């Protein structure tokens, strides 16, 4: 039975992780004291700065490397990162917004059917792996997209990949395979 391609799947991006560099040394103590909405973690050697407008949390290291998490789209991630850099600039550091890169995108999708995981794993032997004692989901790695899909028997899947495009492609790729192994009372 041909899998229908007319189903509109709701892929919801829950997290976009990005990095960028300020190209200058950052005094974490100064940021911790003068910055707004900051959490100074001297034991780890970083400062967390949370932004409200794009809801993001950034980990700031003294080397000037910053990891930005919590955005819901790539554009939002970039905007948030720039706002953050602007904050640091306002504190007084000679910040340059350079090397911005989205490194990870996490999306979830709810399929309208349940899945027989053992059958799915058997059909896709080297690519899919399933160890129910360790984790209740089967994981499916798509090498060329550098993405990973975790499949739950309820039909919910989570997709992680280097960018939104690869995540979307991964869902498209895995859908027919999952459709085959759905838990229908047939």
């Amino acid at each position: 039975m041909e899998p229908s391609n007319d189903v509109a799947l709701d892929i919801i991006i829950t997290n976009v992780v990005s990095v960028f560099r300020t190209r200058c040394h950052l005094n974490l103590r100064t940021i911790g004291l003068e910055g707004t909405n900051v959490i100074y973690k001297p034991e780890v050697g970083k400062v967390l700065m949370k932004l409200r407008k794009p809801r993001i949390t950034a980990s700031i290291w003294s080397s000037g490397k910053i990891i930005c998490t919590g955005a819901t789209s790539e554009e939002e991630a970039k905007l948030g990162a720039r706002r953050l850099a602007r904050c640091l600039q306002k504190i007084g550091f000679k910040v340059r917004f350079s090397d911005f890169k989205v490194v990870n995108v996490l999306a979830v999708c709810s399929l309208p059917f349940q899945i027989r995981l053992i059958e799915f794993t058997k059909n896709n032997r080297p690519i899919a792996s399933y160890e129910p004692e360790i984790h209740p989901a089967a994981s499916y790695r798509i090498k060329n997209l550098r993405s990973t899909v975790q499949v739950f028997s309820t039909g919910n899947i989570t997709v992680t990949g280097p960018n939104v495009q690869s995540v979307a492609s991964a869902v498209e790729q895995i859908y027919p395979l999952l459709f085959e192994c759905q838990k229908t009372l047939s």
Partner: protein
Amino acid sequence: MLSNANSLPKLYLSVIEDVIESIRELFSDEGVEERVLDNLRQLWESKVVQSKAVEGFIKGNNPSNFVLQLPANYSQSLHKPTVVIPAAQNMPSFSSKATPHVFQSSCGSVATFSLPAGITYPVQIPAGVTLQTASGHFYKVNVPVMVTRGAQHVLSHPAAVARSSALTQRPDPAPAASVCETPPTLQSADGPSPAASDSQTEFTLDGIEFSPQPVDPSAASPFTPPAQALRREQDTAADDALPDLQTTPDIKLETDFNFNQLLDITQLDGVADSSSDTEEDDDDDDLGLVGENEFLGMINAAEEEELEEEEDPLNSGDDVSEQDIPEIFDTENVIVCQYDKVKEIHRSKNRWKFYLKDGVMCYGGKDYVFSKAVGEAEW
């Protein structure tokens, strides 16, 4: 709702007192007049009252400092509204407040009452009243007097009062910031004053300003009253005023000298600062990194172009402005305190718990002081 409403005015008053007292010496060393200190205190107190941050804050609230003993016949006159308090504060008239406290002694010679707690200081006392301060000194008022705490009130009958026996300062030196500008002059100049002070010591009701006498303008140095107040408490004769007058020019000269000394100090910071700026260091870093980039650029020119393109927009700064941050901070409610612990209740939820100590909170325009506070909030 909060029980500190009663103690807060006292706390604030004591803070003001402490600060004023501790800087008094500094001010005098710098050559600043006492009047400035008084003005500062007045300003401060009036601002606190204006802000309505504290309930029941009465300027100059010192209930126990002044015990007035009145002659027997005065109690009758008390019922008449002979004494009026200027309506600066919402205080009922002096007489109505004072009446409950008046009790006739058996001998009937004097009636004693203390100024009620809420009384503000501009108090007008009619003539013929004998006053006794907490220290036990007797003062007789021959003409209508206005008792003030501040230095701003000019008496209604300055000339008349000048001739009265109002002279020494209050025994309580602490709030003696209000200046009696020409007490020494009065002591020396007043011929009629001995008549008034026949059996009693001369006194000054605190804060009375008299019209300057031409006798000795140099004696109006701000440093004389505190020094002389204690001395003159014991002195009754006008003769004792003379040594006071003699010392005042000396004091004045000393202060002038000190001020000149201050001018000689050269400034070593600011423009003359020789320490290196942080900007210089950053520039060095930038140069180094730019060099690095150039090197990389030789390998991959395209990458370098990308970098430069991205850097420029941020530097302009227009794109990336956050206007919501000032909005969020546009609040009147502030807590200034020290913290014991501030922690997150679970990382994903934005819930926080605050363990605070030793602070002041201004909420809804009112001030609340605390030694410990626990709070929970969402970010």
